[in-house]
């Protein structure tokens, strides 16, 4: 995002310091639209609930494999589901950008003094917020389904923080794809192509010790796995905080880099006009 050069003169002063205000407007508007159609919120919960309850049942006995150390699979699965939710929700966010372009809303917006960064921040904030709500619900339902979180509130906070960083990264990536590819089909195709492998190359639903070596090696470089590991570690009875903070730091770095690239994609879109 470029910082605005504040021009002299009456009218221009109004645009000063507008990044926050603009971001707030976009976020509030998205939340308002969602609030008005609560049925969408239910739809958004269907997928994580299926993962949580059906995977939870289906793979109940997977913990008997060596590598799981005999833990309860629901305990194991809850942070995995919160993280999976982040990547799948985030990967779709660019669709909103494509729709804005198709409707001409994007071009019109770019003729106003709106800060380009605010459009991106608005998208990130909205998806971050909806992820937090979904995360809390997943954790609560997990608890009702018998999961135990020995790490307590700090563990839950770390889980939510890790997923928020991850969704920021995936949103930025998806938004950038949206701005560069400009069609829903290409965006969704590319996102699916990335999200599914990233999910399976992590310990979201399967313990690393039970996975083949090559997957273990690859997942060490996989931000999705970092989020799962940080969450699971923080939720355990005696977390290794070095591991937790290390993974969170790496996630924050990835989110920042992708956020920067997402903003650059805006420039490339505008150059093509």
């Amino acid at each position, binding site marked *: 995002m470029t910082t*605005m*050069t504040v*021009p002299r*003169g009456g*009218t*221009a002063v*109004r*645009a*000063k310091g*507008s990044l926050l*205000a*603009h971001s707030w*407007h976009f976020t509030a*508007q998205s939340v*308002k*639209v969602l609030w008005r159609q609560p049925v969408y919120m239910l739809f958004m919960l269907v997928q994580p609930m299926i993962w949580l309850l059906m995977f939870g049942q289906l793979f109940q006995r997977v913990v008997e494999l060596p590598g799981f150390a005999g833990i309860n699979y629901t305990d194991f699965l809850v942070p995995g589901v919160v993280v999976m939710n982040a990547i799948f929700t985030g990967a779709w966010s660019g669709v909103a950008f494509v729709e804005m372009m198709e*409707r*001409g*809303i994007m*071009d*019109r*917006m*770019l*003729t*106003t*003094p*709106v800060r380009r960064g605010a459009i991106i921040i608005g998208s990130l904030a909205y998806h971050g917020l909806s992820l937090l709500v979904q995360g809390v619900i997943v954790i609560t339902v997990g608890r009702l389904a018998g999961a135990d979180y020995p790490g307590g509130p700090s563990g839950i906070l770390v889980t939510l923080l890790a997923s928020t960083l991850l969704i920021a990264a995936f949103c930025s990536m998806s938004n950038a794809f949206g701005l560069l590819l400009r069609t829903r089909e290409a965006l969704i195709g590319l996102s699916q192509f990335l999200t599914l492998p990233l999910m399976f190359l992590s310990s979201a639903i399967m313990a690393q010790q039970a996975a083949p070596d090559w997957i273990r090696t690859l997942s060490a470089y996989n931000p999705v796995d970092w989020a799962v590991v940080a969450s699971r570690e923080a939720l355990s009875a005696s977390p290794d905080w070095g591991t937790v903070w290390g993974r969170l730091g790496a996630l924050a770095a990835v989110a920042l880099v992708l956020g920067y690239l997402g903003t650059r994609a805006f420039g490339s879109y*505008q*150059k093509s*006009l």
Partner: protein
Amino acid sequence: MHHAIQAERLVKTYGKVRALDGLSFEVPTGTIFGLLGPNGAGKSTAVRILTTLSRPDDGTATVAGLDVMRSQDQVRLAIGCVTQKISVDPATTGRENLVLHGALYGLPRRDLRRRTDELLARFGLAEAADRPARTYSGGMQRKLDVAMGLIHRPRVLFLDEPTTGLDPEARAALWAEIAGLAADEGLTILLTTHYLEEADRLAATLAIVDRGRVVAAGSPDALKNELRGDAIVADLAGTESLAEAERALGRVPGAREVTVSGRRLRARVDDGAAAVPLVLAALDAAGVRVGAITVARPSLDDVYLRHTGRTFEEEAA
């Protein structure tokens, strides 16, 4: 500031396509200006550059006295922009569309609320204000769209093909609104259109754009008067050689600018009514059967034909 918009030798290429090829024009402050031309003539490209959406490869432009490339932020505050596609958010209400758009300009809350009410009333949307925009008719959405472009009281308003896709009734209603705006708000309006009638009705001055250049500019009347004389159009009934018909018409005393398109012959004469019998006689003598013949005062279509060598309908088709 004498000119609200000044475009000088704008050039823009997309790959191998030269969308603008040295486009120049100026718009006097407080008037409606029409950019007239078929699809692909470069009108929208020109609007994109003047509204800071896109940068020209060459040339300069000022809007409200501000350089569109150097003072983008100030230009954006001074202009309102209504793009070709209706760009209201269908999920939110008319009022919310206006308020969110106004907030992007940093209007103080109370001022924004007052301006929103004012515009809703002005465009006859007060009753529908709190319904989602998706329930609006095409004409209502377009009015909301134009209202959004006015929320911050811009000095220059850009309307890119504002009535495309509207039914005739909605189109007439919007014409009345646009004409009123220039008068009431002291606004300069740049309008692009491929409807001759629209340019004729609304624009005080216009420029005819062809292949990225202005080929003629002036008031609609001045452009028409330049043509001196009436148009004679003869539709041929038979399948005779067109070249022969064209030659025969050319032999009629006083006939000039003879052109053929399809089975239609055109010529310009000083006195249309007096020329009709001569034209019919000449064509008859050449063995050409005429299905219909009309005489018309010069129209913008004739102006277009004169400057581009093509009729407008041909281009639009």
